């Protein structure tokens, strides 16, 4: 590293830009191809290391073995459900608004439960447009859309790439090991549980109160 010259800004100011090139000079051993032996030693070391299994090679035998992805991986989306199996989504369109790729299409319907107001009749994500930035997850006020760490998305035709509620809700909902990017991570699981319990308490409370009111009115 002897040829490195630290150039501070002051140094650049005093010296004009070089008007000729000074390429690297060959040393005598380099002329004689001697440093190639050092290179050969590197490859031989790697070769025998790999051959005897002393060093772990970097190869992952996909698809039998998969790279270990974290709980933050932004993969295929998931629409989460309430305990009764209905979608948590309230069709507020925030995800569609936040999406930089315009890949979310929602059609809202009136929900029978007046505390919920709306739910999505159609919720489609165009997987070919999606850039997997996670903005929909950030935007969702209900934690209704999260991501899984599933990255195999292969389709036979373009129609299949527009996935609807069924595909988004079904495959990953209950496998916590395959969850990806979402507002709270396992390391913050305690917070998440507390918050969720509070949220459900609020819902239950509201329902109870609504019930009481109906009773009272009756």
């Amino acid at each position, binding site marked *: *590293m002897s*040829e*490195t*010259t*630290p*150039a*501070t*800004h002051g140094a*650049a*100011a005093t010296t*004009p*830009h*070089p*008007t*000729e*090139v*000074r*390429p*690297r000079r*060959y040393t005598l*051993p*380099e*002329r004689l191809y001697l*440093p*190639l032996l*050092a*290179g050969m*030693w*590197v*490859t031989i070391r*790697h070769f025998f290391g790999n051959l005897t299994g002393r060093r772990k090679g970097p190869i992952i035998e996909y698809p039998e073995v998969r790279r270990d*992805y*974290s709980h*933050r991986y*932004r993969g295929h989306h998931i629409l989460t459900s309430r305990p009764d199996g209905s979608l948590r989504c309230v069709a507020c369109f*925030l995800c569609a*608004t*936040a999406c*930089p*790729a315009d890949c979310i299409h929602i059609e809202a319907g009136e929900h029978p439960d007046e505390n919920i107001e709306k739910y999505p009749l159609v919720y489609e994500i165009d997987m070919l447009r999606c*850039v*997997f*930035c*996670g*903005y929909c997850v*950030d*935007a969702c*006020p209900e934690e209704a859309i999260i*991501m899984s760490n599933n990255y195999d998305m292969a389709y036979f035709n373009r129609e299949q790439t527009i996935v609807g509620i069924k595909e988004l809700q079904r495959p990953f909902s209950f496998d916590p090991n395959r969850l*990806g*990017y979402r*507002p*709270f*991570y396992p*390391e*913050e699981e305690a*917070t998440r549980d507390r*918050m969720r319990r*509070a*949220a459900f308490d609020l819902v239950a409370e509201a329902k109870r109160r609504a019930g009481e009111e109906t009773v009272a009115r009756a």
Partner: protein
Amino acid sequence: VPEEGLDQPTWVVHRDALVEVCRALRDDPESRFDMLSDLFGMDYPERDERFEAVLHLYSVPRGARLRLKVPLPGADPRLPTLIPVWQGANWFERELYDMFGVQVEGHPNLSRILTHEAFQGHPLRKDYDAARRWILTDEEMYQPKFVFLPGYEERSEDEMFERLTVNIGPSHPAMHGTFRLMAVLDGETIVGSDVEIGYLHRCFEKMSETHTWQQVIPYTDRLNYCSSFINNVGYCRVVERMLGVEVPPRAVWARTILSEFSRIMDHCVANGSTLVDVGALTNFWYLFQVREEIYGLLERCFGARLTVSGTRIGGLPAELPPDFVERSRALLEYIPPRIEDVQRLVDKNRIWMDRSVGISAITGADAVNWSWTGPCLRAAGVGYDVRRAHPYDLYDTVDWEVPVLYGGDVYDRYKVRMLEIWQSLSIIRQLLDRGMPEGPVIVDDPHVALPPKDAAYNQMEAMIYHFKLIMDGIQVPAGERYGCVEGANGELGFYCVSDGGGKPYRVRVRPPCFPVFSTFPQLINGGSLSDAIATLGGLNVIAGELER
């Protein structure tokens, strides 16, 4: 005419005086603006003089910037060419013509550069609809305009020993990305060449105008996709300074570390693929292992390996993972042996040196004139590095050097990158030793950053801010600002103009490899075709950034 109240000195110049003013600014020992950092257009349909050509000048010796604005009437947008003053103006002027329809008088090859020849209209004009599409056919293909070696322009086929025109690309494994190289060979020697770019053009700048400030971040990922985190940082820094928000120290710390990791990754890709092109495949495997593992760290932090979207305006998208420091330290152990292996294989390897020493050499003065920045410029003996000249984040608090070599050739470009990897490792080590600062990772300002999720679920006020921010976007005060970071292949600048709304009025990105690649025909002329391939790898041209 000087303009007041902006982020950097700005003059408004009449177009008839432009060339003289520029020449004076370049030659005057007081100003010495030796580099045309950027040249682009603006469109203000409501003004009398609708278009505006904006020039960013930079003085490498003084470290000073100057912005020149040249108003151009909408009916007759003409501009004199600046190529006699700065060679680097060549492609910038073609881009200006392509995007805004400004006629550059005296330009040797004023043709479309980013869009197809059959494209109609000029996409960055405000009255051009972003969703407009055209059917582009082969019939109106780009006609090469060769840059010849002196003396070869006029020569007919019979006068050359064996004339052959070779076309490489756009889909050719040696043309990293999709470039098209057309070369006229006389025997083995390239005597004339031209390149066509634009196959990956997606008009980032127009798309930015149709999205909110926050939504531009995933687009910036796709500029230099080998080091997307640096792009995120560069863009967010500019917007943060327009907003006047202070990024929390923890986020700054993480940004610096991850930028350096991204730089290592980018240099590994550049060197790995250069070496592959000259036949040294082994190095590619060793270097790409490094990249894979750094991707692992980025994925652990932000959830994606390549297009990380790793910043938000005001900080980072999420708290760093609890094992961030351990993982980074593990990487600091993991990377050096691989870099050392590669250096042992090729640094003094005469086979590689014969292919690279003295190949496509450029002097420092020429490189500055061509608007070069980054490792390629530092390999030509000019020690300009944004991190040192205009320190940002934590670069002025750590101890590091700017490696400068004087060969200006493929070998020194390779070597500068290798030396920079060591410097980056040292920066990361110093920052990790300092320890992670306490505090949040994103600014606590509900007008800029989304409120924490549990607050958004449970508190009415936070919920309102949450909805406001997503529906309307961040409201950036009207104004303009240029900011730059040292990208992996040079000065990566963003020039943002806001009209006070939730969407940018204009986002201009200064792509570092655009001026570097514009020199390519001149660099390879006189060499052989195999030298051209080695040169392309050494320049580290990244199509996503070149063509935006």
